[in-house]
């Protein structure tokens, strides 16, 4: 993990420079653009589009995660246990459903713009998180649950102090999967007029300008990598290794 830091910092710096001063990269991209065409996307700033892109993903995945985790907690309580198989089936079904299809189905209902993308990202984000949260919460060893009860934890204390911390690495992993899928899906969202980096790619495809396609595509890929990596770091912090670091600090 430690060895990854230089690579990580270089990636962050490259993306930041590209987004803020794309003109600096114009000489690299020029061979890809047809003669006389702009090299750097100029109908909106790349930084604004990147912010929109990430904003859409966050606006979809945060509520998605809250809802999925809430649902997973609900169906793993004694009162909600009857719904556990249903939640499992739903999770399995959702995984087989491609995000593009969700997008296509959402447009007729809510029209073009940011909303269909937001809905698609929200819905598709639910399922990996739900699935992982369920795996995490049901995977707590029975002896640990018995000990928590036997020590006199209330059901709520057991959830907050034992079950959620133990499930946390898997839950973060689910959020990570959802977020990465959402970043790529958000790019496709531009086909239905969601603002974001997909706009650059589509403009490039329409104008046959490979420079646009490459800058939009690379930026989206870089965002996915960064988010994937950052959530991996977060997962490390909530895992057992992070627990020891916290104990040592206390």
């Amino acid at each position, binding site marked *: 993990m430690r060895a990854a830091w230089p690579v990580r910092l270089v990636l962050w710096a490259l993306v930041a420079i590209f987004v803020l001063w794309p003109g600096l990269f114009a000489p690299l991209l020029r061979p890809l653009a047809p003669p006389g065409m702009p090299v750097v996307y100029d109908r909106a700033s790349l930084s604004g589009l990147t912010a929109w892109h990430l904003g859409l993903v966050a606006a979809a995945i945060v509520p998605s995660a809250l809802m999925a985790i809430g649902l997973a907690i609900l169906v793993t309580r004694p009162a909600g246990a009857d719904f556990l198989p249903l939640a499992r089936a739903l999770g399995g079904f959702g995984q087989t459903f491609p995000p593009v299809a969700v997008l296509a189905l959402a447009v007729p209902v809510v029209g073009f713009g940011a909303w269909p993308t937001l809905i698609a990202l929200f819905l598709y984000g639910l399922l990996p998180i739900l699935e992982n949260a369920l795996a995490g919460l049901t995977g707590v060893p029975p002896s*640990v649950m018995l000990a928590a009860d036997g020590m006199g*934890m209330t059901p709520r204390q057991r959830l907050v102090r034992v079950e959620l911390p133990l499930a946390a690495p898997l839950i973060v992993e689910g959020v990570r999967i959802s977020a990465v899928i959402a970043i790529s899906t958000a790019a496709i969202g531009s086909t239905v007029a969601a603002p974001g980096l997909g706009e650059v790619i589509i403009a490039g495809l329409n104008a046959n300008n490979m420079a646009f396609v490459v800058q939009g595509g690379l930026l989206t890929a870089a965002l996915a990598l960064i988010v994937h990596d950052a959530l991996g770091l977060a997962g490390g912090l909530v895992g*057992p290794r992070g627990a020891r670091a916290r104990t*040592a600090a206390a």
Partner: protein
Amino acid sequence: MIELQSVTKDFAGVRAVNDVSLTVEQGTVAAVVGTSGSGKSTLLRMVNRLIEPTSGRILIDGADTAGVPAPDLRRRIGYVIQDHGLFPHWSAARNIATVPVLLRWPRAQVRTRVRELMEMLQLDPDVIGPRLPHELSGGQAQRVGVARALAVRPELLLMDEPFGALDPVIRAQAQADLARVQKRLGTTVILVTHDMAEAIRLGDRIAVMRAGRVEQFAAPADIIARPATPFVADLLGEGDRAFRYLSLRPAADLARPEGPGAGPAAGDADAPPLSPGTTMAEALSEMIWTGRDHVRVARADGTGGTVSRDDLIRAGRPE
């Protein structure tokens, strides 16, 4: 004092515990022995209400446990389970602090208490304290589990096959540690085990359970001398009865004072005396192995004595 009064538990029509009444005196160890499925763990879990009895009452010092909210009751009762059930995301020290933290003890007091417990159980607080459960050996994890159960000085300790996951050498050590800690603290213990030898070793009284019923509840010597049912006798193992009986008392009880004329042959006197805690069974085994008919035994008060084989053999048959 713990009183179980006609306690019964049904699971979906199956009677797991059937009309059990037992009284465990303050400061004693009651061992509950039985085969798997005999209802012994269910019986134990009804004491701290992890399982609610279908009928019957359980009193602790005269107060009905049903009258206290279950989490409050459980915080007052120590609980040790078979594969220790340590919280995997907490260090050994944090695990031990579980109940004090639930009871909102001041931080400094928690820290002092954790150190005290770790020292009592021979765990180095600075080395073992920060370790996570998966970094502990089986014996260390077991002791951390016991420390966690004893954290708020409970008067009652429930142990559900606490030594089941340990290998035989560590198990013997853990049993000896428990006996030592129990004597020192005067804690009342209810211990569930499937191992009759363990029950004889640790129990002041033994309850033998089968199919949800207690077949016999008596002191180890009575259980061995007069098994109430064929099942109890089976569990004891007929072949080992005499040795089991001899394992209950120290050999020093039979020692005759050493002196000129009264002592054994000169050669034997050179052999080092057996330690004061040596049981009669161990003394007899020593004689068989070394081919002698006398052994020397040290007494706790520093004096020595001689035990003869004939006396031992006589002591192996209950009156």
